[in-house]
Every structure is written in structure tokens, then in C-alpha cells.
């Protein structure tokens, strides 16, 4: 099993969710996050005070999947979240040791 974490542009969330559903991903967790990468921040001006805002708002999407789905998931996210411009985000893939469904106690593949 794998845990796929993708940092994407917020307005791409719906497309990514649809693409993941289409290939059979059963659930995702979404978090609003801030961070910086190669994309530059911006400045904000309040009367006389100028502030550089380095951290940009992004969305973090997490999906726990069976290993055989990995390539498809990566491809789906890559395609759906891509604008070709700097700041499109990144995908991280982790090994996933164990999964438990709280309601039934099912584990691993049965719990995904």
C-alpha cells in the first residue's frame, strides 16, 4: 500500500478529485496549507507598510491506495493538476504500513 500526498494549486482540487474518483480511488483527505517552493510570493501594501508574503496558499491532497494503483494515481494527479506554470506543486509517495477501518476493524486492503 502507498500513501500519495500531492501539493496542488487550490483551484485544481476539483479536477484532481474527479480524476482520482474516475480511476477508483475510494477516498481522499484534503487540507488547506501554505508553503513556498520555486514560485515567488508577492508583496502586500497596507497604507505605508509593505510586507512580502512568502507563503502561498496550496491544497494538500492525501490518498491511501493499493500499490498496483500507484502509477495510475500519479498520472491522474499530474494531468489534472498541471497548468504548465511555476507553482503547480509536487507529489510525494510513501510506503504505507497498515490501514484500519475504525467502524469494522477491517485492515489493510480491505480497509482501503
Amino acid at each position, binding site marked *: 500500500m502507498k500513501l500519495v500526498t500531492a501539493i496542488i494549486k487550490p483551484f485544481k482540487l476539483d479536477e484532481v478529485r474527479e480524476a482520482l474518483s474516475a480511476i477508483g480511488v475510494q477516498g481522499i483527505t484534503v487540507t488547506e496549507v501554505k508553503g513556498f517552493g520555486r514560485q515567488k510570493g508577492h508583496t502586500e501594501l497596507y*497604507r*505605508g507598510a509593505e*510586507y512580502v508574503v512568502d507563503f502561498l496558499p496550496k491544497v494538500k491532497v492525501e490518498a491511501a491506495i493499493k500499490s498496483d494503483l500507484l502509477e495510475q494515481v500519479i498520472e491522474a494527479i499530474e494531468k489534472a493538476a498541471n497548468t504548465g506554470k511555476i507553482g503547480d506543486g509536487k507529489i510525494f509517495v510513501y510506503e504505507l504500513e497498515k490501514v484500519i477501518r475504525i467502524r469494522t476493524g477491517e485492515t489493510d486492503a480491505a480497509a482501503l
Partner: protein
Amino acid sequence: MKKLLAVLALAGFTFAGPALGQDKPAAAAPGADKPAAAAPAADAKKEEPKKDEAKKEEPKAEAKPAPTPNKGDTAWMLTSTALVLMMSVPALALFYGGMVRSKNTLSMLMQVFVVFSLVTVLWCIYGYSIAFTEGNAYFGGFDRLFLKGTFDPAKGEFSMAATFSKGTVLYELVFVAFQATFAAITCCLVLGAIAERAKFAAVLAFIVLWFTFAYAPIAHMVWFWMGPDAYTSAKVVDEMNGKAGLLWQWGALDFAGGTVVHINAGIAGLVGAYLIGKRVGYGKEALMPHNLTLTMIGAALLWTGWFGFNAGSALEANGTAGLAFINTYLATACAVLAWTLGEAMFKGKPSMLGAASGAVAGLVAITPAAGNVGIPGAFVIGFAAGFVCLWGVNGLKRALKVDDSLDVFGVHALGGILGALLTGVFNDPSLGGPGFYNNWFEMKPGFESMVAQVWTQAKAVGVTLLWSGIVAAAAYKLVDMTIGLRVTEDEEREGLDVTSHGEAAYRT
């Protein structure tokens, strides 16, 4: 300028009542008299014996009843009073509250809310008496402690306050309430300069001192006079002028509070910002406004409420109120455009905070001018205020090296000074201004020359800056030595909402 009261239907004070037989009493009296006749007892009656002195100058005059307030005037002044209350709670509180960080939102709202209440109470205990009763050129007297003598329940009679028209009076209690809101909002204005770091108790203690020794006397100096009906003959003109406040005697014009409200509060704020010190992280961390939507709502409500502030300062529902109204409306619009244009030119992007700030700058600058200038004055004062106050929160603020958190000096003091000086220019009848009277018996125009009037205005500005600045410095020092002005650094970092008030504005 406001004035004072004089005709006491009840106390039978001598000086003013009598005036009605004079100049053009007939014009004002009739409309007013009629309702009085039918009115219930509680409705200020004036069959009070007219005093004989009234007839001295004009023996042929029939004995007339003392004037009764016009119901339209009364309705307008009650409305104006409520509008000015709206300018503070909620408008000023939201305007300021949106500009602080989210962890200090409630502290800002709370300070405005409680200071407004505190000053209202002080006003009714002694503030009104010090500001608006006869005394010397600096302070009034104590005749009206606890508003004594404004209402006689046994007779159902109310005392009267003067307006700017002979034979036209206002219920003194209405005037008391109207002026109470001015005192209260002025004290609230100061709070923006020391936002996000002042101890709550210190704020209240400072306000008690500053209100007592700066606001009340300056209001007296600028706005107290005996009222038009006191000018019963050519002989008493000098005497009556001599009983007015110092700056009024000088001929300084301040329609609704350029000196009394904005310069007064602005310099007190600046002194406070110096004495309390910069916020932790100032210049290093981002101290950004947390919700400019609140600020926009506050500015918009300020604009609305300011019609009560400025047009209400005519004290009557008349042409001068109309002039003050359109000037307030127009100058503010000009200032919004000017600030927006200035930001677009010098900063690259026009901002909502800028537009809201421009509106307030325009409102401030037109305040002393409102009923004292014509339409040309409104255009110039409005546009000038937008550009000048934009500089006030940029170049000037950097030069002052002070953390005046919400730019009370850059907007209110600077805008007030600009407005006060330009009032001296645009009061000129040749520039469309109404001029003013300095002899309320012969109704002689007081406007001599633009240079002379601007100089008079400048002196009034200087007196206000010095008086308020010195009182503020002493009051802050006193409070700092006793209570301490500032919260601890840890409390400041955590935010005043939780550490001073035990609550949070937003759940996360």
C-alpha cells in the same frame, strides 16, 4: 461652533431669554410657537413670564412668549445624535478592528465600546458643565453637574440651549446628548494609535484624565459662546464676546470639530504612540490588517454617521445643515478618488484600505469646514485631504519614526489641520464661502481677509496641538507610573483578546 444655552425657561436666568424681541424674531418664532401651545405639559413650555429687559431695546415689541424649539429641529438633532453614536459603536470600532491582527480584534472593539460608555457617563456628570457653561475663556463652570437644571419635573419644563439663529432654541438635553457623542467618539479616536499593546485599565485611566483636562476645555475654548439671543444690544456685544471660549473670541472657525475632535485626538494619539513604544515585531514581522471587510464596513458607516456629525452641527434643520451635508458628502467622495489615484500612481495598485482611508481623511478635513465653506471649498478640501493624508501615512509616518498603529495622527490630526487651515481660505465669500459673524447684534461679517483668517485658524491649531499634546503626555506618564501603560511582551505576543479579555474573536 456650538454654543450655549442660555435661555432658561425655568431657572429664569437673565442673560439670554430676552433676546427674542430683537432682530428677526418674528421669522423664527411663529412656527415654533404653535406647537407649543398644544403640546403636553412635559413639552417645554414657555409661558414663563418674559422678562422685561427684553423690551428695553425695542419698547414697541409686544411681550412675547419665550421661543419653543421647532419640532423639525428637534427631530433632526435627535437623529443626528444617534448617527454620531453609530459612528463610534459600531463604525469606528469596526474600522479599527479590521486593521488590527485577529488576536487583538476584540480588544480593539472592547476599548472603543467601553471608552464610549465611560466618556458618556463623565459627560453627564461634569464634562458637559465644564465644556458648555459660562466660566472663563478656558473652562466652563459647574452649574450643570449631573445635568442639574435641565429638566424641572415639577413644572414639566425643559431648559433651552441656543442655536445659531436668533429666537430659535433647542432643548438643552438634546444638545447635551448630541455633544456627548462628540466627546465620546473623540476619546475613542485616540485608541487607534496605541492599539495592540495597551493595558485595558491604563486606557480607561488615561481617557478619564485626557477627557477632563484636554477635551472638555478645548471644546469650551472653541465652541462655547453665549448664543445669538444674548446679543441684545450693541452695548453688550463686547461683553458677550468676552464670555465666549478663547478660540471663539479669536474668531477661529470650527464647524464640527477639526480642532476639538480630530487634531485633539490625533496629537494625543501620536504622543501616546511615542510614550508607549512600538509594538513587538514592528518593522520586522508582518503586522497586517486581519479583515479589511470590517474596515470597509466601518468606513462606510462612518461616512453615513458623519452626516449627523457635520450637518447636525448646524443645530437646526436648515440651509446651513444642507450645506454641511453636501460638503460632507462631496468632499469625502473627492478624497476617496484622490487617495485611490495617489496609490495607483505612487504604489502601483489602488487598495480598498486606501479608499476607506481616503474617505475618513476627507470626512476629517471637511469637518471644521462643513457649514463654513461653499461647494468650491468641498472640492478642494476633499481632493487635498486624499493626497495629504496618503503622504501622512507614508512619508510623514516614516519621518516620525513612530508606531502610530492605525495612523491616528496621519489621518485625523493631519486631515484636521488641513481642514482647519483651508476653512480659513474657503470661508471667504469671494470663494463661495458663507463668511461668519463676529457681531451678533448688528450681524456684521467677521471675515476680514483670507490671510488674517488663515492665521487665526493656524493659531487655533497650534493651541490645540500644544494643549492636548501636553495634557496627553502628562496623563500617559501618570498612568504609566501607577498602572503601567503596556501589557507584558508575552501577553502582547499571545494577543490581547485572550490575555486581557479572556475570549477570542474567531474560532479556528
